[in-house]
Each structure stands twice: as structure tokens, then as C-alpha cells.
């Protein structure tokens, strides 16, 4: 990519007039930045639906017995909450929004390798979302299996499973296509001089993630296809009455869905690795260690799926192996934490909003990670399996990890994406309320789980009442914080003060281009000579 471009005053990508006008200029745009924003807006819509469902569930649990909904409604609520949050928001989340927007800019490219394919993947995403959500309104009632579609219930239940499963299958394709695009982009389009080990850490994280997307998603694709065939044609893949083994379904499902956890968390770690050096004004500590641990997580994370099945009746050998591997995969994650903390050591930290989000990330991610160790231990798991403890654990990882990183990334790159600054005091107030609400919501659930409250029940016995009240209050507080954060950003995108090129004094390539970037990002493809976090 060396051809020089015609010189003209370049409008930003937000103002650029292409072939189409109005909304079509967005939904038919192959510009990676517009596609990134398309994903952001669609996710915002889905997120508000799923978060509302979550809040309703917490309201149901505010008192024992039926309060605002019955058992069947509760079952379909946690199913839809799970499907939407996992398949529509957290799995595509960071790669599709910030990966699309910033990967090409951070490696000094004008776009991703296959821009049309990139737009296509957004269309598949929307199609999959509509198919999945249609399960709520068509047929014989909303699905009630949970987002895991466990066999044999998933083909025995009378509810409308087919659209939900097909939707998840279609969404898988979107994920694969994005991953494929990113791998080729990173292999082929790095700017001259940007050797592999000079690449910033967010692209590195996306690279690891992309490989998991490409290599793990097809397994769940074929598994869901088998469930569809099982439901429609009565092929006995997982039906015990036809000789199938339901545990094999669990194996296949988690062969994807555990690596999927790393699809969620690796880019989050990448974001944190960008934010921390910028606000610490220091080179990241142990760049190589972070890169290696990213790849190690991607690789080892592929072989730990069995820890979701400790009580399923697997063989003892399999149990021990999966437990050991689970502890192994914690090592590279811990390495990263040490790297981030070591970067902060003796740094003159600039306490801006993105940094505060990253800081909260460290806190909640450590709680999530350490509670994961508890669950990875076989004997503890038997006690805690399918209790509220598990729910608390994965919300600390998925919402606490990926969610905090997502909002951190949004506050970090917001000036670049929209060319405007947000109101910092409102952003900080929102974060404070959100963070307090988050912990008030999920910390009691650890306690509830240990004392025996099962997950996925709309009702509970009287002795769980106290912590549940606290937890439900936390949910309301958290939603309040969320509303403040989002309202502030939406308002600022229109009315905020104009942002400079480099408001945070960052050193990576995205801070050398205009805010918001022009259509082609770079007038001239940069030649990279420095390391990514060169603050000395």
C-alpha cells in the first residue's frame, strides 16, 4: 500500500459523502469506521433490551415467591438475557466495535483487508439478531433452555427453539468473518516498519481473538446445526433414547463456548494494555510477556472446556485433566495483571476517566478471576455448581471484565471516534455509581451461592431474602449509573467541546490522525520506527 493519494482537504469519515445518502450512507458503507459505529449503535439497542431483562429478573428476586413474573416467564427471560448478552454483545463487542474502528488505524492501514466482507458480516449479525429475537414472538412461546441449549431438553421442550438456535448459528458466521478479516489485515496491511513485535497490544489481542473466532466458532456452528437436525428430522445425535449421548453435546458446546470466554476477555485485556501506559506515561512493563501470554491464553483456553461439566458424569481422568488445565490458564492472565500493576509502579498517573475504568477493571477482574479458581477446583465445584456463585463469577468476568473494558475503551477512544470531548465530571459520577451498584449487585450473590441458592430459579426460601434485597438494590443502582454514563456520552457526541488530535497524549498511531479520522485515516501511510509505547 504505497500509492500516494490525491491531495485535497479531507472531510472526516462522519461527514464524507459517498454514493448513498442518509441512513444508506451508513448501512451500505464499507468504511471500517462506519461499520464499527454501526455495530456500536446496534449493540446499544440490544444491550438496553438485555439489561432491562436482567433488571426485571433482579426485581423478581427481590422477595420470595412470585413478585412480578411467573416461572416460565423467568425462564424465558434468563434465556433471552443470556443469548442477547453473549451472542449479540459480549462476543462480538470489542472486536466488532473497537477492533473494526481502530485495528486498521493502529497498524497504519487505510481499511481492513476485505471491506465488503466486513460490511457483509454486519449484515449477517443483524440477520442473526432478528432470527434469534423472533423466537420470542413466533410459535409456541419463548425458549426456556438458557443460552446453553443443553440437550436433550433443547429438542424436547415445546417452546420455539429453532429460531433461537438458528440465530446463534448465523451469528457465528458473522464472528468467523470478522476474525478472518482481522487475521488477514494484520498479516498483510501493517505499515512499513511495523514488525510483529512493534505492534500495539490491542491489535495483538485482536489477533489472538481472531484465531479463536475462526477456529472455535465452527464447532458450535455444527453443534447447533445438529440440534436443528435433531429437532426437525429426528436424527439421534444427542437423544439418549436413540443412542445419543447428551454429555457429548456439552463437550461440543463448551469446546466453542469456553474459548468464547477468551474471545470476550482477550480484547478487553488488549484495551487495558492500551489505556494503562497512556495514563501512566510509561512504557508498558513486559511487552513481550503480554504478547506471549495473549497467545498462551488463546491456545490453552481451547482445552479447558470440561470445567463447565464437572458434575455431568465425566470420567475421573477427564476431571483431573480439565481441572489442572484450568489452573494453568490462570497463569498467563495473572502475568498480565502483574504487568499492568508494574507499569503503574512509580508512574505519574493522570487520573482521567478511561484510566478510572481500567482501574476498576483490575479490581473486578481480579475478583472474577480468583472466584474462577475456586470453581476450577474439583471439590469446591461440586458444591458450587449451578449456584448463584457461578452467576456472580461470570458476571464479574464477563460484565466486570469485558463490560468495564468496553466502557473504558469507549471513554478512551470517544474523542477520536466522534471528535468531541465528553463531560468528565458526569462521566466520573456515572462510573462511581455504576461501580458501587455493580459490586452491591454481584458480591451478595457469591454469599448466596455458597449458602446454597441455586441459579435460574424465580423463587427461593425465606433465609436467602436479605442478601437478595441488597443484590436487587444494587441492580437498580447499577442501572442508574449506566443511564448516567450513556446519557453523558450520547449528549457529548453532539454537544461536547471539539477534541484535539491527541487529548490523552497517547503514543500509538491512532493519536496521529485527525479526530474524527478522515475517510482514509492517513494522508500518507506512516513509516513506523518506534516501539508502540515509547514515552522515554
Amino acid at each position: 500500500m504505497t500509492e500516494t493519494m490525491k491531495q485535497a482537504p479531507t472531510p472526516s469519515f462522519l461527514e464524507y459523502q459517498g454514493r448513498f445518502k442518509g441512513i444508506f450512507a451508513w448501512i451500505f458503507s464499507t468504511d471500517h469506521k462506519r461499520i464499527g459505529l454501526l455495530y456500536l449503535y446496534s449493540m446499544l439497542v440490544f444491550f438496553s433490551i438485555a439489561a432491562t431483562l436482567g433488571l426485571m429478573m433482579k426485581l423478581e428476586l427481590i422477595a420470595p415467591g412470585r413478585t412480578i413474573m411467573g416461572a416460565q416467564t423467568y425462564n424465558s427471560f434468563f434465556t433471552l438475557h443470556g443469548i442477547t448478552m453473549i451472542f449479540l454483545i459480549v462476543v462480538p463487542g470489542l472486536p466488532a466495535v473497537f477492533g473494526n474502528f481502530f485495528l486498521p488505524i493502529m497498524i497504519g492501514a487505510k481499511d481492513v483487508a476485505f471491506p465488503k466482507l466486513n460490511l457483509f458480516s454486519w449484515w449477517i449479525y443483524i440477520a442473526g439478531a432478528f432470527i434469534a429475537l423472533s423466537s420470542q414472538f413466533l410459535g409456541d412461546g419463548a425458549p426456556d433452555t438458557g443460552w446453553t441449549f443443553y440437550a436433550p431438553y433443547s429438542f424436547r421442550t415445546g417452546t420455539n427453539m429453532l429460531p433461537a438456535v438458528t440465530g446463534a448459528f448465523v451469528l457465528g458466521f458473522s464472528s468467523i468473518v470478522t476474525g478472518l478479516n482481522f487475521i488477514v489485515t494484520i498479516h498483510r496491511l501493517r505499515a512499513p516498519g511495523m514488525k510483529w513485535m512493534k505492534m500495539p497490544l490491542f491489535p495483538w489481542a485482536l489477533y489472538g481473538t481472531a484465531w479463536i473466532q475462526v477456529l472455535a466458532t465452527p464447532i458450535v456452528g455444527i453443534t447447533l446445526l445438529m440440534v436443528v437436525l435433531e429437532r426437525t428430522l429426528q436424527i439421534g445425535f444427542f437423544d439418549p433414547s436413540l443412542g445419543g449421548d447428551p454429555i457429548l453435546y456439552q463437550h461440543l458446546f463448551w469446546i466453542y463456548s469456553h474459548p468464547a470466554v477468551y474471545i470476550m476477555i482477550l480484547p478487553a485485556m488488549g484495551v487495558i494494555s492500551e489505556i494503562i501506559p497512556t495514563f501512566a506515561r510509561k512504557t508498558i512493563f513486559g511487552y513481550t510477556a503480554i504478547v506471549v501470554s495473549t497467545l498462551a491464553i488463546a491456545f490453552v483456553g481451547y482445552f479447558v472446556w470440561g470445567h463447565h461439566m464437572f458434575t455431568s458424569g465425566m470420567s475421573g481422568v477427564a476431571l483431573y485433566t480439565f481441572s489442572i488445565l484450568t489452573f494453568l490458564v490462570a497463569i498467563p492472565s495473572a502475568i498480565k495483571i502483574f504487568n499492568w500493576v508494574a507499569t503503574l509502579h512509580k508512574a505519574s498517573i493522570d487520573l482521567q476517566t478511561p484510566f478510572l475504568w481500567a482501574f476498576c477493571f483490575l479490581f473486578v477482574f481480579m475478583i472474577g478471576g480468583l472466584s474462577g479458581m475456586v470453581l476450577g477446583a474439583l471439590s469446591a465445584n461440586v458444591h458450587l455448581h449451578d449456584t448463584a456463585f457461578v452467576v456472580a463469577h461470570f458476571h464479574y468476568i464477563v460484565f466486570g471484565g469485558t463490560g468495564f473494558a468496553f466502557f473504558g475503551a469507549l471513554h478512551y477512544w470517544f474523542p477520536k471516534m466522534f471528535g468531541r470531548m465528553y463531560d468528565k465530571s458526569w462521566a466520573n459520577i456515572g462510573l462511581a455509581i455504576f461501580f458501587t451498584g455493580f459490586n452491591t449487585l454481584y458480591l451478595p450473590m457469591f454469599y448466596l451461592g455458597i449458602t446454597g441458592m441455586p441459579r435460574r430459579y424465580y423463587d427461593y426460601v425465606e433465609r436467602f431474602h436479605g442478601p437478595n434485597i441488597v443484590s436487587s438494590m444494587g441492580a437498580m443502582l447499577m442501572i442508574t449509573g449506566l443511564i448516567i454514563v450513556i446519557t453523558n456520552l450520547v449528549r457529548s457526541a453532539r454537544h461536547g467541546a471539539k477534541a484535539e488530535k491527541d487529548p490523552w497524549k497517547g503514543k500509538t498511531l491512532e493519536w496521529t490522525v485527525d479526530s474524527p479520522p478522515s475517510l482514509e485515516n492517513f494522508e500518507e501511510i506512516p513509516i513506523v520506527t518506534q516501539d508502540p509505547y515509547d514515552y522515554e
Partner: protein
Amino acid sequence: MENGQHAHIVKYKTFVVVLIVLLVFTFSSVGITQIDLGVYSVTAALIFAVLKSILVLMYFMHLKFDKKVYALMTAGIILLLMIVILVTFLDYLYR
């Protein structure tokens, strides 16, 4: 960029030779499974299948002539699938 510079042109003859070997392997695998070797007949058929797939990958799919990174990636993916099957069988073998 190096567009259009696919330096290596494989000879027609190479492909014909590869095809002949592939056909020989196919018939051998059919032949060997007709003899009763017990459990080993499936093993034998699979060994032939592996040999055939290596030939297809190396010659028909140009891995032998392309950049080494493709061969490495392919080997890695096959290894990954093997390990996944192995780990799955840790359950079924010892249940």
C-alpha cells in the same frame, strides 16, 4: 506488492503422477480392508487416508510451493483438532 508473481508453475506431469499415487492408495485401502485384520483394518484404511490427504495438501493445494506459513498453519490446525479429539476421549476412554 507481489501480485501476479506466482513464480512457481507446477508441471502437468507432477499432477498426473500424484493422481496415480492417490488412486493406488485408494485401491490399496479398499483392498486391505477386505482382508480381515481385526481392529487394524480401520487403522490401515486411515493411514492410507492420511497419506492421501498429505499428497493433496502438498501438491494439489500447493503447500509445497507456497510460503511456509500456510503449511505451518495447516499443521497447527490439524494438531489442534487432534488434541481436541484426544482430550474428548479422556472422558470416553476412562468412563
